[in-house]
């Protein structure tokens, strides 16, 4: 079941709704947000996924990272946290 999340990409000017799947990795989710924001922000292949103020292992799934409906996450340039 899709999980609606609020995604914020560094360099963008507004948050976007992203529908995540429990089994997808947070890196895949980060790419999904980048694609959604591609009208405004150039693609950056080196990013960190930030949830609750911490960088999350990109290989963790959405469920493993503990993301729940209507949570907020950020995607920022790698090492900027």
């Amino acid at each position, binding site marked *: 079941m899709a999980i*609606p999340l*609020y995604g*914020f990409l*560094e*360099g*963008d*000017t*507004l*948050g*976007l*709704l*992203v529908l995540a799947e429990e089994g997808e990795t947070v890196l895949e989710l980060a790419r999904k947000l980048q694609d*959604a*924001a591609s*009208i*405004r*922000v*150039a693609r950056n292949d080196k990013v960190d996924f930030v949830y609750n103020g911490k960088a999350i292992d990109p290989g963790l799934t959405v469920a493993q990272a503990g993301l729940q*409906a*209507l*949570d*907020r996450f*950020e995607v920022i340039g790698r090492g900027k946290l």
Partner: protein
Amino acid sequence: MRATSAYTYRATLWFDFVMPSPAERKWLRQKYPKYWDDMDAVWEHVSERWRTTGPGAANELKVHGTAMPTFCDLCQLPLSAGTPRKNTANVLAKDGRKYIFCSEPCRWIFLREPERYANHTELVKRVLSGEAPAQLPELLTEYFRLTPETWGKDVYNGAYDWLTIPKASTA
């Protein structure tokens, strides 16, 4: 933040937009030296999209956001406060529900009178509940009652002289 966001979602509004020219962006850089570089990168990226697609009314929606934008549970405006480096949107879990606010002031106002605002659902929650369509074309036409004749566009449909001039000459 809001001008750039609105430009890339102009079809959700009922008025037209103009992109800032290189000369106007230069002026804005002088006025806002701390923040303008981040904003300018966004305008440059949007400009590049027009360069790629070419001007014309038929290309309006190719230079437009497609993902669902998000909105503040208090002021109902898009979550576009702060800067491109740090959006100030913040989530509040209260009484078994989650709320999101564009800024600390909106959160503060909500917490003064939560009972007044708790049931004011913003657009995302209306989409998630099925009250509003999830796809942008249907959202525009069926829910906002906009039409291609009435929704917002780029005033010049991307036909700016400066877009055809090599970038080095426009800086």
